[in-house]
């Protein structure tokens, strides 16, 4: 489990993997033109983990990635890679692979030349470079016919593979992925995501990805950190984050959330409780009326007006629900999760 810093609800959690940490940020801050973009962030990433930094556009997640890669220097705080302080080191000294959002493939070089770049600038022998380039291109599944093409002659998915191969070719201990799936269509995105997971399993390289897509983050990662306005709000496993968010923002950002004042449910406690739409059952406890139904293929999502609050219910599409139907819902106690009122949006 990673630890997060002073601004985080999990502040003070001792890193259990300190001996094998790949990346550590200690109270890192960065500002663009006086505006704080990353604010006092601490994070420890264990070796071999797939960590995703999740947050809305402009929350500072790409800046955080660039601070790890050395493309930006923090105004405060320190960056450690494999327990060495690299805060002042430029990217060329950090030995970190990075896949940029636009892939940043060199347009004047072929696929092979792009992938060989990191090896050649390190002065590796030609024969070894060629061997390594072919091996890494095999790993990302790029066919030999495509290897002598220029980036402009490749599809978006192929370019993404080349960018990944280039970042992996020199065998960095840490791989940074800046919204790697953002410019792919939905079908291709899922395919490439699965491949990213496969490659991560095979190479065991510590991977830090940033994305604004919660499904992508939950499905790919061992650990997810949710960011808002330059701060890491919570860092946890996807399951923990989804089931036990520590703020309303995290609860809302990770999928549909019913957030209801505890007193309205007749509970003898203060604050807000969370229950996910798929955890609600059709039953007898809270009578109401269906006010909207949305068909989602396998599922139906219905909004139900119950007394003075609205609940969102996700149920199998075989259920026959229509707007105006009377319905009663049960909120199983074991699924109710209390969230402090602070930080509400």
């Amino acid at each position: 489990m990673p630890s997060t810093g002073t601004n985080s609800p999990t502040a003070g959690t001792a890193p259990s993997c300190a001996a094998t940490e790949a990346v550590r940020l200690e109270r890192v801050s960065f500002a663009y033109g006086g505006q704080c973009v990353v604010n006092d962030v601490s994070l420890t990433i264990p070796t071999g983990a797939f960590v995703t930094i999740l947050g809305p556009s402009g929350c500072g997640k790409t800046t955080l990635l660039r601070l790890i890669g050395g493309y930006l220097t923090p105004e405060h705080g320190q960056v450690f890679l494999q327990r060495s302080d690299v805060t002042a080191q430029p990217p060329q000294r950090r030995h970190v692979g990075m896949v940029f959002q636009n892939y940043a493939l060199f347009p004047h070089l072929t696929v092979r030349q792009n992938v060989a770049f990191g090896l050649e600038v390190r002065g590796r022998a030609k024969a070894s470079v060629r061997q390594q380039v072919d091996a890494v291109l095999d790993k990302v599944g790029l066919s030999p016919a495509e290897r002598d093409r220029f980036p402009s002659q490749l599809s978006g998915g192929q370019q993404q593979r080349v960018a990944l191969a280039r970042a992996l070719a020199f065998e960095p201990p840490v791989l940074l992925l800046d919204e790697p799936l953002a410019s792919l269509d939905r079908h291709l995105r899922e395919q490439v995501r699965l491949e990213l997971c496969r490659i991560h399993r095979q190479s065991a390289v510590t991977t830090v990805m940033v994305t604004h897509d919660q499904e992508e983050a939950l499905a790919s990662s061992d650990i997810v950190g949710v960011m808002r306005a330059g701060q890491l709000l919570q860092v946890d496993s996807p399951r923990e984050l989804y089931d036990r968010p520590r703020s309303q923002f995290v609860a809302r950002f990770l999928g549909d959330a019913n957030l209801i004042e505890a007193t309205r449910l007749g509970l003898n406690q203060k604050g807000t409780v969370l229950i996910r739409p798929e955890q609600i059952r059709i039953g007898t406890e809270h009578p109401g009326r269906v006010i909207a139904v949305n068909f989602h293929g396998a599922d139906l999502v219905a909004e139900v007006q119950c007394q003075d609050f609205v609940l969102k219910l996700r149920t199998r599409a075989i259920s026959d629900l229509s707007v105006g139907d009377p319905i009663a819902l049960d909120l199983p106690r074991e699924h109710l999760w209390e969230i402090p009122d602070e930080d509400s949006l």
Partner: protein
Amino acid sequence: MKYRVSALLPAGPALAMVCGLVIGPLLLLIRVSLYEPATGRGFYTPGTLSFTNYAAFADGYLLGIAGFTVGCGLAIATMVLLIAYPLGLFLSSLTARMQLIALGLILMPKTAGLLAMLFGLQRWLPRGVLATLIAEVYLVLPYAVIVIYAQLLNLDPTLRAAARGLGASSWQVFRRVTLPLSMPGMILAFQLGLMWGLGAFLGPLFLGRPNETTLAVELHRQAFEYGRWPLAATEAVGLLVLVTVAATGVPAVVQMRRVTRC
């Protein structure tokens, strides 16, 4: 077809100008070059059609001038590139505000009177090839800097960041990314310098020695001092051929080298 015609409409005034003020006079120039020299009064012999003027290029004197013109062009183009490229690099590395100020400073000499500037240089430099080259480089440099600067500004900054992330030193980033990707701008700047240099007139006229004459100065002399219009027109056609070769030849050579390398 309808679309094509309507698409051409905005370019109409420019096309009319090219046809009326460039192609027309060019055809007239070629016609004049085909007249025989005047035997008595006038500038040429009307009604004649002959290639005898072009035989003058076989003459050592005119060939020497053409050779000097080409040498001047190549030297000017090379000097322009060597000065403009680092300046363009420096310019593109400045902040947006500083870029504006620096661009203004680079363009400022162009707003000064051309003759005043040449007169100043004449007081400063001794007459000769070097002074001629310096004057012409001085005149064309701002255009070349803008061409290179625009090219460098268009380079995706993440490419250089990616190269650094892959382990490249600053020199390696420059040699393997910036330089090859700014090649189109460099070629254009070289071409601009070459075409400008081939047509060099004011520099050699004000700052060159009498035996260091370019085709442009020579044709001016033939036309306006000696009244030999057919010969002057022939020299003008020769100059136009050189400029056309420079305009089309430089990209063709670059393309050929690219194909050979592939």
